[in-house]
């Protein structure tokens, strides 16, 4: 029983940790693009990579202050969004999807390539760029703090505090936007962009704004991740994270302000709980070693997530927060 509570505590820590924040920010960005505007961005991780490396390169390589690094990261995300949007947003939705998925993979390969090594330090990545950030913490970052049965280091606590503040601000921003006439226009674009054009709205401009906003939110996620791990490595930014964020968004409920946040927390909670729980059960001999070995757990937990998502889509296609009536309109 004590082990079960331990597993829950570890899972809770994961659900509140910087990885969950990372996923939540990616998913909030995707929610703006896909959930509200209907844009298919399959390369959200590229924006996160630019955010993380924006800080890492500016501080470690160019010796710039931390805040400049943040601005560089955000600026790079805006530029990427414009580059992807300019040629594709006048075309059908599929073209943006193709361009973004290619950009995500291409950028990761570029950052880890030999020719980029002088700037990005290749596959070894960059580290030691979060000193300024950690120094801002109002508490002693060297100490360990026990919270809810788990131990958090001061630095970890600082990253998560700032991270959740960013998530809260992002949610507030999205909430303000989607209840305004601006939100009404982008939701209408999701439904039928020609109808919106016929009513005198510049659809292209709105799509671009949504793409840039979602990209900036993704860049913030990448920054939190880089600061959380205190390093930036191209292979941290695998495009699988984009799809994990989509899964989190669908789990929480698309086109809902809090959907992506709750989805991301739950996702990490479930992944971690399945991991710790299964390991405990194997360690206790409740699950026999020849049925499932401890080394298989890392894979099997994603199988469990997949099964859970399938059940969700069958029994609750609108996600946790979604409106069933709204989702069912599509099926007709």
């Amino acid at each position, binding site marked *: 029983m004590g082990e079960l509570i331990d597993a829950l505590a570890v899972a809770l820590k994961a659900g509140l940790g910087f990885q969950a924040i990372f996923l939540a920010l990616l998913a909030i960005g995707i929610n703006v693009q896909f959930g509200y505007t209907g844009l298919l961005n399959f390369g959200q991780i590229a924006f996160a990579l630019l955010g993380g490396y924006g800080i890492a390169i500016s501080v470690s390589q160019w010796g710039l202050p931390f805040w400049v690094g943040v601005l560089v990261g955000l600026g790079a995300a805006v530029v990427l969004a414009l580059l992807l949007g300019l040629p594709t947003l006048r075309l059908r939705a599929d073209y943006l999807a193709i361009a973004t998925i290619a950009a995500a993979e291409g950028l990761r390969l570029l950052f880890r390539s030999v020719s980029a090594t002088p700037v990005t330090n290749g596959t070894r990545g960059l580290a030691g760029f979060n000193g300024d950030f950690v120094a801002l913490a109002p508490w002693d970052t060297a100490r360990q703090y026990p919270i809810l049965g788990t131990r958090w280091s001061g630095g970890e606590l600082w990253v998560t505090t700032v991270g959740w503040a960013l998530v809260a601000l992002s949610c507030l*921003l999205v909430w303000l*936007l989607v209840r305004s006439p601006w939100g009404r*226009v982008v*939701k209408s674009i999701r*439904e039928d962009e*020609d109808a919106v054009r016929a*009513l*005198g709205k510049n659809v292209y401009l709105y799509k671009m704004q949504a793409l840039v906003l979602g990209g900036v939110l993704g860049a913030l996620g990448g920054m939190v991740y880089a600061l959380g791990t205190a390093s930036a490595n191209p292979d941290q930014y695998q495009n699988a994270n984009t799809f994990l964020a989509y899964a989190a968004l669908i789990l929480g409920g698309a086109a809902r302000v809090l959907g992506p946040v709750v989805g991301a927390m739950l996702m990490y909670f479930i992944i971690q709980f399945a991991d710790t729980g299964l390991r405990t059960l194997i360690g206790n001999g409740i699950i026999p070693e020849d049925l499932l070995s401890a080394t298989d757990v890392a894979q099997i937990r994603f199988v469990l997530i997949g099964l859970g998502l399938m059940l969700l889509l069958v029994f609750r296609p609108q996600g946790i927060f979604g409106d069933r009536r709204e989702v069912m309109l599509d099926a007709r």
Partner: protein
Amino acid sequence: MPAEPVPAEPVPGRPAAGGAHAASLDAPAAGAPRLLARAALRDVPWEVGVAKPDPAIVVDGVTRTFGGLTAVSVDHLEVQRGGITGLIGPNGAGKTTLFNLLTGFDQPNTGSWSFDGRPLGKLAPHQVARLGVVRTFQLTKALSRLTVLQNMLLGAQGQRGESFWRALVPGTWRAQERANTEKAMELLTRFKLDRKKDDFAGTLSGGQRKLLEMARALMSDPKVVMLDEPMAGVNPALTQSLLGHVKDLREEGMTVVFVEHDMDVVRDISDWVVVMAAGKVIAEGPPESVSQNQAVVDAYLGAHHDAPLTVEEEDRVLAEAEAAIAREEGADGDVIGSDTRREEDR
């Protein structure tokens, strides 16, 4: 008999509403826009490309080809301001393509057109709409996962809250939003959709969606309304109500262009009818002129469909038929042949 003068007496002294109504029936020139447009078009010759007294839209030499197919090739066309112009023609005549060209949804290969003297050639759809030319679509475009009221509010023009930064400060757009909501509710009441205002547009019936689309277009205070098959797939009762709404648009001074297949509808509401076939305008004129026009009848039913057979042709057909029967029936084929003929005569 003594009762009769009693109800008749108050009539002259009745309030202005009744009086205005009576005036619109009796005195056409006094300001009813419907009859103004009719009157203005009365002396216009029934010719293709004829100049109108007060054109709102002028089309010149517009062509659009898709590969080898010339979908639209209109030399000259003028649309009278404040009137209802019906655009008819068989399937594939290029009516919808012309609509798309006029509203910026498609670009022509050659030609120019203008609205109120301003060229529209290079404008994007939203720019055309901002000039006051709004359209509806053949396949209704209700925004399913928005409520009916949100659909309506989308139609309003010049909304401050539609800019990204101002959207974040509700104070800048609240008052405008309230005014727009009031206007939307008035229109919804007029179109009998007010009780549906909080329903998702996707739950409306096909006819209600047509109504919503028209009402939404009116939210933008258009000058020209272009309706692409507004009555398609709508039951007869709702057709009548839609017809009434289209006529109301003209009463409010708007110019209406609509595509329609139902000739009764066209005859009922149009001031002027333009007939297209194979991408060209083949006839135009008042509705009653068009059904007598030989080119129009040919376009719809094919040339020679009802040209009477000559006597020689009749004899030849008859002889062929008899010969065929004779071959089949052998010697008494003749008898059977004449029997059959006699039966047919009865």
